[in-house]
């Protein structure tokens, strides 16, 4: 999580208009989910991979590694969708007998699972593109400009800021506990963990208090109003790529539905 954040600050795309990047990521994700097609999902995955690696300058191996992160959840979920349980052996492509029942995969189940798998992967790639190219501050700035509720944006900003302080505190405390053999055995481990949790809670509470004091000292009046850095100039041409690409994808999907016949399954 901390690494991803750091990468966004070093991305070559950091200084492009965040609105452009957000629209690109979110619209493409929308199309990917709507199309519900393996081919489109793979296309989206490739496009996002290309944009992140070639345009943004993220290392290819890193992008792949990040895609592997949700893999275990994805595979578990997909297996649950693919596998069915029934008394009728004939509906299965492949099955094993369990007493009088059968456990196996059906054609439809397999299709569903494949669609789900690639759809999720495509969507994840879109989000990775966004988080690897756009620092959170820029995302929040866009939210603010879109007139999202102030409270929500402020909360997100504070959470984002203090997650790092919190993690650092937790990290230091674990190190300190470790160096006094806090996690040497199971029971010691549980005890240390409990102490860590309660102390962290108290610290967080105290931090919040101190933060409020410090904000008050600078004239806090219920709202965290700030002036943003001058953002990159707005260029409508920046949106052409997004709109064009997604237009093509949509036409492609419609065409497949119309003329693709059996291929539509993909």
């Amino acid at each position, binding site marked *: 999580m901390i690494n991803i*954040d750091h990468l966004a600050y070093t991305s070559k795309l950091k200084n492009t208009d965040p609105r452009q990047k957000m629209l690109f990521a979110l619209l493409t994700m929308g199309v990917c989910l709507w199309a519900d097609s393996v081919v489109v999902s793979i296309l989206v995955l490739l496009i996002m991979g290309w944009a992140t690696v070639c345009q943004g300058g993220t290392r290819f191996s890193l992008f792949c590694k990040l895609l592997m992160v949700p893999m275990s959840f994805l595979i578990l979920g997909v297996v649950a969708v693919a596998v069915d349980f029934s008394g009728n052996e004939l509906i299965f492509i492949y099955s094993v007998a369990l007493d009088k029942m059968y456990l196996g995969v059906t054609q439809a189940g397999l299709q569903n699972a494949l669609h789900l798998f690639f759809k999720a992967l495509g969507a994840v790639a879109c989000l990775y593109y966004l988080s690897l190219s756009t620092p959170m501050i820029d995302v929040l700035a866009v939210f603010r400009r879109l007139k999202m509720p102030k409270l929500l944006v402020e909360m997100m900003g504070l959470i984002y800021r203090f997650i790092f302080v919190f993690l650092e505190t937790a990290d230091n405390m674990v190190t300190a506990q470790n160096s006094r053999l806090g996690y040497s055995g199971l029971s010691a481990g549980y005890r240390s963990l409990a102490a860590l949790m309660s102390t962290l809670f108290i610290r967080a509470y105290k*931090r919040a208090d101190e933060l409020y*004091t410090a904000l008050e000292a600078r*004239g806090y009046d219920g709202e965290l109003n*700030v*002036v943003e850095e001058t953002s990159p100039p707005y260029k409508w041409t920046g949106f052409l790529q997004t709109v064009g690409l997604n237009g093509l994808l949509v036409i492609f999907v419609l065409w497949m539905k119309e003329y693709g016949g059996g291929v539509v399954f993909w």
Partner: protein
Amino acid sequence: MVKDDILETQGLSYTYADGTNALRQVNLNIKTGEITAVLGGNGAGKSTLFLNFNGILKPSSGQVFFHGKPLEYSHRSLQELRRKVGIVFQDPDTQLFSASVYQDISFGPVNMKLPEKEVRIRVAEAMERTGISDLKNKATHNLSFGQKKRVAIAGVLAMKPEVLVLDEPTAGLDPMGVSEIMKLLKETQQELGLSVVISTHDIDLVPLYCDYAYVMDKGEIILKGSPKEVFSEKKAIRSVHLRLPRIAHLMEILKDKDDFEFRETAVTISEARKVLKDWKNSRI
């Protein structure tokens, strides 16, 4: 009440909710346009005192005066007061609320309802002054401790306060960082005619940069005066977990143990040099 006191306390006492008497009958005067140091060991009450300066804590008894007028604790007057008395906190992580350096510094000026253009000018100035212009596009959490400290100072400077109150501005900095921050404060104080109050355990910087010093212990002021006067009270200084500046200590040893006969005392290197030169000349 002398006319050029910008901050003053009379009989200021503060008791925390748990019954800790953090301040007892504190009387002090902060002179306009000077750098005043508040010295004291851990738990002496320095941070508590500072929070009383801008009305974040309300005295249990006694009063705080700003420009000779007692503080009022209504919302309006507090807002007004806080734009004139700026506090930089001990730990920059509690003060910096935004992940963006630029946005954080702009917070104070925006709260003062200044037009955006003016805010941008002030932010740029404050960043320039504190030497962090190149950190504009960095995230707060990727900064070093010393850099965060500068951002925190910039955030308060951008409000152009009349008094700058800094709680341990040099704690946790490397020797270079300490002298850079102190020079920055001295310059700012001289150029903008600012009054500065700092708390510190760093004894050696007091005679170098400060015009006046108060020494606190257990919530009480036990010594006050110019750094030279304060450090001539050797016993009292040592009794409150503090020490003399290294140079003063050396001069003391030379005088008491090695029978040097100095006419004056010295607390900084340049003073010591002068005293030693005089001593050499007097022997010829």
